C-alpha cells in the first residue's frame, strides 16, 4: 500500500475560528489508503472542526491537511467543493437524505454532481449502480418508498449507498450509528465494512462510543491528538 498516497495526512495543524483562540492543534496524523480508522471524539473535543478541515469546508489557520496528497487549502473554494464531492463520501449522524428526492435519486446524487464518480461506474448506468448498491445494502424492498417514510436504519443505509456510489477514495462517517439500536448498529457496521472493502475506500469512522473501536484497524483518540488549550 505504500505506493498509494496517504488518504489523510495532517501536519502541524492549527485552527481557530477567531485569531488567538485556537480550538484545534494536531501535530501529525497519517491514515493510509484502505485503512479502517476509528476516531474517538466525545462532544466538545473539536470533532466537528476536524471533520470540517478534512472535508475542506474549513481552512487551517496554520499547517496542512492533505487528502490523497492534495492540500485542499491551496485550492479555490469551488475546486475544493468539487474535490470533496469527487473523493469523499460523507455520512451524517441523522437526516442524511434530501426529503424531496426518491431513494434512488438520493443515492445517485454524487454521480450526477461529479463526472469522475459517474465515470467510475464504467458501462453501468447511474440507476443500475444505485439499484445494485441499494440491493447490496438490503434496501431492495424500499427503492420506491418515499425517503421520509424510511426508518432511521434504512435512511442510514441509503446514506451509506450514496457515500459509496462511484467509489470515492475516502468515506467519512460522523456518528452514523448513534441513533441505531445495538442489533441494527452491528449489521450496519458489517455492511459498511464490506462495501468499503469492495470499493477499496478508506474509512474514517467517528464516534463517542469506544466499544465500537475494537472492530477497526486502528483507533485514534481526538482528545489525545488535540493539543489546543483547554483540551
Amino acid at each position: 500500500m505504500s505506493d498509494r498516497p496517504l488518504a489523510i495526512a495532517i501536519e502541524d495543524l492549527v485552527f481557530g475560528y477567531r485569531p488567538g483562540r485556537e480550538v484545534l492543534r494536531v501535530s501529525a496524523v497519517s491514515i493510509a489508503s484502505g485503512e479502517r480508522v476509528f476516531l474517538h471524539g466525545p462532544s466538545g473535543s473539536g470533532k466537528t472542526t476536524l471533520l470540517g478541515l478534512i472535508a475542506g469546508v474549513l481552512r487551517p489557520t496554520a499547517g496542512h491537511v492533505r487528502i490523497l496528497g492534495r492540500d485542499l487549502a491551496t485550492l479555490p473554494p469551488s475546486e475544493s467543493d468539487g474535490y470533496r464531492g469527487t473523493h469523499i463520501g460523507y455520512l451524517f449522524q441523522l437526516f442524511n437524505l434530501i426529503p424531496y428526492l426518491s431513494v434512488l435519486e438520493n443515492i445517485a446524487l454524487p454521480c450526477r454532481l461529479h463526472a469522475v464518480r459517474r465515470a467510475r461506474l464504467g458501462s453501468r448506468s447511474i440507476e443500475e449502480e444505485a439499484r445494485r448498491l441499494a440491493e447490496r445494502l438490503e434496501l431492495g424492498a424500499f427503492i420506491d418508498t418515499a425517503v421520509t417514510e424510511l426508518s432511521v436504519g434504512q435512511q442510514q443505509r441509503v446514506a451509506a449507498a450514496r457515500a459509496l456510489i462511484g467509489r470515492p477514495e475516502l468515506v467519512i462517517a460522523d456518528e452514523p450509528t448513534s441513533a441505531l439500536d445495538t442489533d441494527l448498529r452491528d449489521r450496519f457496521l458489517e455492511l459498511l465494512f464490506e462495501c468499503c472493502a469492495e470499493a477499496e475506500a478508506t474509512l474514517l469512522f467517528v464516534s463517542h462510543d469506544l466499544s465500537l473501536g475494537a472492530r477497526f484497524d486502528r483507533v485514534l483518540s481526538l482528545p489525545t491528538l488535540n493539543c489546543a488549550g483547554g483540551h
Partner: protein
Amino acid sequence: MLTLQLALRSLRNRRLTTILTVLSIALSVALLVGVETVRRGIRESFAGTIRGTDLIVGARGGSQQLLLSSIFGLGAPAGAVEWSTYQRWARHPAVAWTIPISLGDSYYGYRVVGTTSAFFEHYRYRNDGRVTAGEGRLLERDTDVVVGIEVATRRGLTLGSPVTLTHGLRGTGISDHEEHPFTVVGILSRTSTPVDRSVFITLEGIEGMHEGMPAESPDGWAQPRFAPLQRPGSSAPAAPPSGSPTVMPGAGPPSALPGVAAPLPADDHDHPPVTVAAAEDHAGHDHKLTAFLLGTKARAASLMLQRQMNTDRVEPLTAILPAVALTELWHSISYAEDGARIITGAVLLVGLLGMLVALYSTLQERRREMAILRSLGAGPGRIAALLVLESGLLALVGAVVGVALVYGLLVVGQGIAETHFGVYIPITAPKQLEWLYLGGVVVAGVLVGLIPAWRAYRNTLQDGLTIRL
C-alpha cells in the same frame, strides 16, 4: 440541469406553499395585465366612438365641452347654432355631408337626439361601423322613434311601443310631452358607444313636440335643454351655464306644464308626415341646432374649414377635429390611469413579497438539506442558484398563469363588459407592454430570490457540514 431538477422537485415537495405563492403572483399579474387590457379597451372604445367625421361644430365654447355634449351626451353644450348658419356651412363647397344634431330632451334619463337620416348614413364608429337597425327600420316619419339597444332592453321597448319624451334631462314628471306620443319603429344594433343609450327622432319630431309651448324661450324649440329642471314656482332660477345665450327652458313659469299650456292646434297630430329628406327645407324656420358633424370632400380641407368656422363673423362657432379632441380628453383623465397603474404595481409588489416570505421562511428547515448538498460537493454558489431558480420559476409560472387568467376572463367577460358597460374589449395577442411586464415579473422574481439565496449562502458557509436540527 441538476439544479433545475432539484428546484422543481423541491417546489413540488412543498406543494401547498408553491401553489399559494404561484396563485398570489398569478393574481397580481392578472390584475396588472387585466387593468392594462381594460384600459386599452376603454381607450379604443372611447376613441372609436366617432370615426369618419372630420369636424364637430357647435356654439363657441370649449372643445371638450362640445365633444362631451354632442358625442358622449355628457354635460351641457355651450349654446346653440342657428339653422341658417348650419345651412350656410352645409352648402360650403368643401363639405361632403353634414349631420345636424339637436339635443335637450330625454327619455327616462336617456338623451333624445334629433337628427336626420344623414346620421345613419354618415356616422361611423370603431372600424367603419355604421349605425343600423337591428330590428324594424330607421327614421322616416316625424312620430318615429329609433332607440339604442340599451334603451330598448332597459325600458322593455319593442317595435310599436308608444314613447313619451320628457322635456329636459331629468326623469319624468313636470313636462312630459304627453300630448305628442311617439312610436318605436326601430331598435339599433349594438355599437358599444353612447348611441346604445340614445333615442333618435327626426328634427320635425322635435319641432312638433315643442310647438305650442308658449312659455318656451322665443328662440325656439331646439334650444338645448341641459340644465337641471326646477320645480315650478321655484323662486330663483339656476344660473344658466356660461355661454348659454338664453334662459333655461324648463325653468319657466307654471304655464309651461302640459295641460296648462295653450291648446295645441287641432291638426297637430294630423299634419302630413314630413320625410327626413325634407329636412334641408327648414331654412325658412327660425330654429336652432345643438351641433352638427361634417365630413369633407377631401380630408385636407378640414383644417382650413376649421379655421374658417372658428372665425365665422356671422355666428361665433367652435369647430373641433374629433381625433384631436378625443386625445386631449383622454390625456386630461389619464391621471386615473396612472393611479390604477400605481395600485396594480403595489399589488404586484405584495405578491412578490409574499413569495419572498414563503421562500425565506423555509430556509431554516432547509439548512439540513443545504448541509447535505454541501457534503456532496455542491458549492455555496449552486445552493444560492437553487433558491434563485426556485423563485424565478415561481414568478414565471405565476406570470403565465396570470396572463392565462386574464385571457380566460376576457373570453367569459367580453360580452358582459359590452352589455353592461358599453366597453368592447378586443382579445388580442399580448402586446409589447405585456411582454415587458411578464419579463419584469420574472426578473423581479429572480431578484427577490437573491435575498434568500444570499441568506442560504451565508448559512452554508457558517454551517459547513454541521447539520443544525
